[in-house]
């Protein structure tokens, strides 16, 4: 590994994970030690039973049906993006361990084709959603509502996705090569496997990881804490 690879695809990953985990814990800690509003900020109607309320909280947070009704375009983009990001996350778990049953079922070649299609689709959907949001903020009526934070996050995401797509569509390496690198990270001894030596994918991977690291480091200090906070704020519809 040269110094840039070591910074982005080596030590940087550890730093990012520490900051992300610590930052999120700190954020949740901060919320939890701030007392809840003493007055009831209720929104009606509410379900009567506890289980119905819990169900409503999950639906409100994961689906937000009322938001779909009023702003279908934004919500479709948001939903596709979040689902694609979730799919991409699960796809990346191949780097931790190969999905053996799936490989057994599809065969080595079949697995690579499946990954190419699913990963490719997720990458394209995410890129389209990010470009839509960038456009909406830059050319829409809401330019004045947007702050630099909004653009920074979109640029970081775009960087991650573009470089990821580059690895997927342009690069010629398969998961087992990246898995070897990822295993070295898990073993706390980051290095690239021999079959990556001298290949252009290193450059793309390093940039992919640079954006990932920056994204994870910034995450706890950004509006993306809605990933956890939304469960609490949506309680106004179902709690109390």
């Amino acid at each position, binding site marked *: 590994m040269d110094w840039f690879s070591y910074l982005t695809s080596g030590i940087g990953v550890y730093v990012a994970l520490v900051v992300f985990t610590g930052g999120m814990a700190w*954020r949740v800690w*901060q*919320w*939890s030690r*701030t*007392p*809840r*509003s*003493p*007055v*009831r*900020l*209720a*929104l*009606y*109607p*509410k379900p009567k039973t506890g289980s119905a309320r819990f169900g409503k909280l999950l639906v*409100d947070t994961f689906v*937000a049906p*009322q*938001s779909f*009704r*009023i*702003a279908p375009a*934004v*919500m479709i983009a*948001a939903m596709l993006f979040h689902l694609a990001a979730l799919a991409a996350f699960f796809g990346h778990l191949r780097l931790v361990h190969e999905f053996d049953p799936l490989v057994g079922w599809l065969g080595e070649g079949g697995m690579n084709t499946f990954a190419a299609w699913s990963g490719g689709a997720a990458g394209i959907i995410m890129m389209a959603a990010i470009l839509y949001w960038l456009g909406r903020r830059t050319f829409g*009526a*809401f330019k*004045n*509502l*947007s*702050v*630099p*934070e*909004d653009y*920074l996050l979109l640029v970081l995401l775009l960087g991650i996705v573009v470089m990821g797509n580059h690895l997927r569509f342009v690069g010629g390496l398969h998961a087992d090569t990246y898995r070897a690198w990822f295993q070295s990270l898990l073993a706390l001894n980051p290095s690239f496997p021999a079959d990556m030596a001298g290949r252009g994918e290193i450059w793309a991977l390093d940039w992919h990881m640079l954006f990932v690291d920056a994204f994870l480091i910034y995450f706890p*200090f950004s*509006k993306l*804490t*809605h990933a956890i*906070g*939304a469960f*609490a*704020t*949506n*309680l*106004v*519809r179902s709690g109390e």
Partner: protein
Amino acid sequence: MEKKTIESMVGVLDARMNRQLKQYMDICARCAICKDACHQYVATGDMKYLPARRAELLRQIYRKYFTKAGQFMPALYEAREPDENLIDELYESTYACTGCRRCTYFCPFSIDTGWITAVSKGVLIAAGRGNEMLGQLADAALFKADNMDMFDSIIVDGFKDVERELREETGRDVAIPVDVAGADILYVALAGSHSIKPAAVIFDAAGASWTLSKFEAANYGFFFGDPAKAKLIADRFMNEAKRLGVKEVVITECGHAYRVAEMFYEAWAKEKMPFKVRHILEVIDDYIKDGRITVDPKAITQRVTYHDPCQIGRNGGIYEQPRDIVTAIAPDFVDMTPNRETQWCCGGGGGIVAMEEFNTVRLASGGKKVEQIRATGATILACPCENCRLQIEELDKVHDLGLRIVPVMELVAEALVPKK
């Protein structure tokens, strides 16, 4: 701005900080899904009325003084020290908000702009920019409470006048009891007799044990944005209720007063009240269903529609009782679309009807309501909130809707069948 002023603004924000507010400040994605939810933004397209923008103005101060990230990289978050420009926009944006929380309903994170603007009002008051009119109205209410010996006889004489008027209008003796210890109900009306007469007639017909509060339910301290004053104003009738030992406090057809009494007061007073709080329409609905009063099911022949006041419906949870009452006396009832939790705010909430400077946006923001009312073809609009009625009466004049706008209980009083 002076350093001391800024310190006191930040101090208010600190004192009012709670978990929900902190989360609203931290997680808003500025997705602007709220844009089509707000009657004021829909009517004007003016950014300062966009719910997310209303919150963003307070967030700029929050980021600057309450987050390390905002202090470290202010430009990234547009964190800033408050200046006159910020305060001007915050004032316009905050006091115009009717607190209807329609944006909260549609927000994927349920961010409560009504609560955020309530805190912004506190910050504005600290900056010396609280709305003067609302402040005066709040102070007048408190002055009345502090100098009851000066006003007691005037108020009681006023009630005697109402009794006389009722005798002339109904031909019957309907008593307006005041200061009755041990009564079941303390009825809290508005200063105007229109909120006393129909209730008196209905209580009388139901044979209810009730007594009328000497204080009005309206709470301009709440609209002004000062919870301490709002509590003191509500204290007036809450203490009266305790003193008289009533079983329940019944709030007249007034939206914010109901929400203050039912949702906020116990938290403000930090004690559990020895009585329950109900809205008058919950009581009347029970009277009809229990047969304590008899109403003529065909009493109201014209088409009637019903407007859900935000503080009673979306924020108070009373949707069905008023509809049950109206359909029990008016065969031709047509609901507006949308209704209940997605109902459009009429544009008259939050004390905006008392603030002349917002007249233009207030009247423009009633556009959706006007469309909705027109579509029903109704000639009577029943509505259990004084601010809504004031606003809709003005919309009725401006748009020539030919409506009769009434409290629900007034229709009930008309539909009462006298007991034999």
